[in-house]
């Protein structure tokens, strides 16, 4: 029997005035997934996440939580979900404990003080819970936000850019916490980020959206495979772009920024490309195969510009 998704987005679309923020986006998240939601700033990630939670109403499309249609009349389904959307804004004049206790009471079901202490322990805030939130660092607020999201033991955690505004130490700790929530506590997690290496390190499946549209969705390892075919070249010649475009290599050029050019091609063709670049007098400074999701992401999202000659 086919596994039922914990949450499913079907053909979600949302416009604000003439601006189409999300267009026909569909995806499913299953038990145990750490599902990465990638996109540049303004790509439509937060709008999509807000539609999943009923904060924003879609113009078209539907959301299903555990197979049941989710809308304003079935908000009880949110007991299966815990979320931190954008910043974890909390009542600053209350203590961490009061914030946690208040939101726990609104989360459905009876939640004991023992459970509150347990989640505080998981997020590493034990001992600071009686401090007023206004004295918390950004990282502490994020961790309290996650404690609030998971206090009622939901099936799915939705974390929108959880490392935003954190210092490097905070980012590292947050990454460890999310990995721990997945591995030690078996949480299904939907995490969005524009910091692609984070998704690369944490997610098992992912979706990439660009300008409100789904570009690609699937298993991270499978999606990463094409990245092995990306070649990155740094050139000295400022007019290299016109020479490349007018050559047979123009069709393989997927992305260009400054003096760096990214080609999608087999690694075995690298010597041939190098030979041509030298013969064309373009001044090769560096040539390498790239393996990062970032390059893959840029190659996907900038493909249309490259084809339009906008590189």
């Amino acid at each position, binding site marked *: 029997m086919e596994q039922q998704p914990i949450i499913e987005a079907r053909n979600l679309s949302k416009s604000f005035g003439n601006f189409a923020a999300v267009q026909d986006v569909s995806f499913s998240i299953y038990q145990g997934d750490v599902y990465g939601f990638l996109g540049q700033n303004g790509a439509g990630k937060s709008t999509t996440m*807000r539609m999943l*939670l*009923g*904060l*924003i*109403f879609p113009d078209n499309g539907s959301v299903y939580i555990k197979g049941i249609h989710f809308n*304003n009349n079935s*908000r*009880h*389904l*949110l*007991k299966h*979900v*815990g*979320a*931190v*959307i*954008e*910043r*974890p*804004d*909390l*009542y*600053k*004049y*209350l203590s961490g404990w*009061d914030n946690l206790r*208040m*939101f726990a*009471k*609104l*989360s*459905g079901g009876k939640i004991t003080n023992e459970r509150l202490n347990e989640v505080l322990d998981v997020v590493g805030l034990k001992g600071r819970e009686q401090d007023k939130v206004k004295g918390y660092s950004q990282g502490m607020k994020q961790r309290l*936000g996650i404690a*609030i*999201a998971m206090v009622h033991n939901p099936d799915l955690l939705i974390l929108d850019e959880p490392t935003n505004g954190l210092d490097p130490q905070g980012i590292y700790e947050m990454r460890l916490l999310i990995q721990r929530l997945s591995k030690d506590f078996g949480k299904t997690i939907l995490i969005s980020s524009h910091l692609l290496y984070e998704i690369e390190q944490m997610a098992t499946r992912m979706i990439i959206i660009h300008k409100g549209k789904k570009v690609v969705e699937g298993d991270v390892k499978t999606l990463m495979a094409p990245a092995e075919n990306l070649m990155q070249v740094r050139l000295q010649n400022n007019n290299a772009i016109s020479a490349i475009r007018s050559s047979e290599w123009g069709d393989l050029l997927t992305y260009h920024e400054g003096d760096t050019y990214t080609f999608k091609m087999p690694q075995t063709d690298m010597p041939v490309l190098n030979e041509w670049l030298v013969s064309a007098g373009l001044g090769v400074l560096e040539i390498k195969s790239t393996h990062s999701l970032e390059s893959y992401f840029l190659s996907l999202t900038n493909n249309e510009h490259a084809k339009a000659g906008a590189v």
Partner: protein
Amino acid sequence: MLRLELYKIFKRPRTYISFAIVTAIAMVIQLAMLADGKNFISFALQAVTEQFDIQGNILNGYLVAYIILQSLLVQIPLLIALVAGDVLAGEAGMGTLRLLLTKPQSRTKIVLVKFVASLCYALMLITWLAVVALGLSVLIFGEGDLINLKSDSFVVLLKHDIPWRYVAAFGFAALAMATVASLALLLSSFADNAIGPIMGTMGVIVVLMIFSTLELPIFAVIKKYLFTTHMIGWKGFFDDPVPYAAILRSATVLLAYTVAFVSITIFWFNRKDIKS
């Protein structure tokens, strides 16, 4: 959920500003009456004393309380707006509304709970007003008959006939404040920061109050439909005989406005995209 909402309201220092303002205004008037009350009374009753012999404790707690209530006519609604205008928009501004709405609670319930919490706050403020304006005044100035001066007549209410009138007047005032709270809540649902709805509520009340009190023929037609006209219905309890029909009409209008404002808020909030 209501307990949580009240906890939030009464944990905020700004909530107590209203109580401090009411106390300050009441005490300033009481001090002024202590210092110069006799001259004020003899000046106010000048026309009356020419034809009537008035004896006894005229400058009593009931009279001072009545003067305080008259002067707080505009201020109290503004103080209600300070909290009720903040309950939705303030949370939107802080970003906590976003977190609140990710919880499995219906939006209608959230609006109703916030309205009832604002109402509780209004009732507490009215009760506090009763304590400082009436209780303290009676304590300082003692009891006595109340002379209610009107533009073309005056009413004398015997001291044993006064307490129930104050209870009824404060009850009516609570209803009027419910209308103010519901208006502030409605404006609060449209905005993403608290300043707009608070200022908006104050603006609407001040403008409509001007329409309600100006004796111009052009406003005569609309006057009876304005809720501000009916907010001063509490004064009827200090007439003799009490105009029960007019008071009931005013109470009905206020109740209708309250229900309408809350209903529109629920309708709007259930369709609102939370983008803050």
